[in-house]
């Protein structure tokens, strides 16, 4: 965000700031989606199927709210006559944020289909993967707040932390898949568990994509 006194430039910057503030709301909704998913995983591990179903429903509702926010941001970006300087990056960012909630919802749906009690080793790795997602999305949230407050150093540090967490999530996926294939599971559960592992890693991937945008904004603003 360059400092600019020209009114057209200022309007562009103001639009960018407005989009980033909506993005903050969006990431908060996404954070809720991830938190509800973590609750669903916890309930699943604890064998509380009713709590799992409730949490999965909350994930779905939260994802819907995130969708509404996404539409609002896309409208703002496409309707504006004076657009932010980085409109293409912003549009990409909005879509990426939405994908985090989408993929989390996808993971929750898969979790809902798994009825067979999974072995301890698989459950432990699912739990670890979920923790990585929660940590990543927390860092992303902090990164967006840092960009809005113009604390570019922190924004960069947070994006880099998300990158490292994504790397950990890659390793975690490998471990989880190893655990799944070394366990005797029914074919349907095996398939669903494998897909869940893919989705869990996919969520951190999407979080990293969003963090990359924060990095771009922070570097451009330097």
């Amino acid at each position, binding site marked *: 965000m360059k400092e600019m*006194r020209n*009114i*057209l*430039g200022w309007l562009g910057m*103001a639009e960018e700031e407005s989009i980033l503030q909506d993005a903050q709301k969006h990431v908060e909704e996404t954070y809720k989606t991830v938190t509800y998913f973590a609750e669903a995983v916890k309930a699943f591990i604890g064998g509380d199927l009713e709590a799992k179903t409730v949490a999965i429903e909350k994930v779905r509702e939260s994802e819907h709210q995130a969708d509404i926010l996404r539409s609002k941001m896309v409208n703002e970006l496409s309707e504006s006559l004076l657009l932010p300087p980085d409109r293409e990056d912003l549009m990409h960012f909005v879509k990426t944020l939405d994908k985090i909630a989408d993929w989390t919802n996808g993971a929750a749906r898969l979790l809902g289909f798994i009825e067979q009690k999974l072995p301890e080793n698989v459950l432990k790795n699912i739990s670890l993967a979920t923790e990585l997602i929660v940590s990543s999305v927390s860092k992303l949230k902090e990164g967006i707040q840092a960009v809005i407050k113009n604390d570019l150093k922190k924004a960069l540090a947070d994006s880099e932390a998300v990158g490292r967490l994504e790397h950990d999530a890659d390793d975690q996926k490998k471990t989880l898949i190893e655990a799944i294939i070394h366990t005797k599971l029914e074919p349907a559960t095996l398939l669903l568990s494998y897909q869940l592992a893919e989705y869990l890693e996919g969520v951190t991937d999407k979080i990293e994509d969003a963090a990359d945008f924060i990095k771009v904004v922070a570097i451009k603003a330097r």
Partner: protein
Amino acid sequence: MYIFLVGVTLLMGIAVGWSIGANDAANSLGTAVGSRVLNLKQAIVLICIFGFLGAYFQGSHVVNTIGKGIVPMDQLDKPLAIYLALVASFAACAWVVLATYWKMPISTSHSIVGAVAGAGLAISAPVRWKILLDIFICWLFTPIGAAVLGYIFYRVFKNIFYRIVPRKYLRPVLAGLIITSGCYVAYTWGANDVANAVGVISGSGIISVNISTIIGGAAILLGIVTWGYKVIETVGSEIAHLLPIMAFSVQLASAINVHVYTGFGIPVSTSHSIVGAIFGVGLVRGVHVLNLRIIREIVFCWLATPFISGVIGFLILKGLMVFLKIGG
């Protein structure tokens, strides 16, 4: 000491002119560059020519208002008038710099008017409140008038343009209209804004009105060629996303609006005129161009600027009077 004061005052005026040229040049032909009707060099040449012509031919109206209308500087002791000119320019410039740092959309016109009044009060000069009130009312009507004109122009042009212009001439005609209206914006911008740089200098009697418009115009040119091109490039290539007919309507509405006030010698914000025109054009499309937060910020800056620059001008001149024992 006298020569030094005159030199510093002139330099301060040139600095204000430079800042105007550097920051606001993009308002006139930024869209033309963005839509590739003109390249950057052509746009700069046109802005320089028309900005200077505006300053030279019609700049004197507003120069007289700022120099003699708000506070009758020509009736003050010359050294006192020079101090007033220096402090008012400095206060206006300081507030513009601070506001830019804080990313506030403020107007140099509003800043200089407040600064002149504040500095005038500091030396107990007769501030003409009636003229100040007229200026305030005009500030209120600047964006409103531009919005109404923008709305009417876009409504009319969007309906008749494609009917009366043969298809094969669409592009050249549109390009011609955008360039012409952009040059008109540059002309009215030069005519209205040159006074922000040199109005007080001319009022203090250091130089004549004609010479002041030439110096002010030259300072604005300097701003355009040394820095303004960067802003034009950013605005043109990255921000303004107006369709050609919209850009034409915005520019024409804004230029006519500012031209009317210039004719009456009222210093108005060319930026606010453009924002108003964009808002008016946006209304036709049913687009919420400016959200409430953005409007609130603009209105807040509009209200705060003259008071803050006035307070800065008042305090600095009061301080100088105490320390340098002037005006007593």
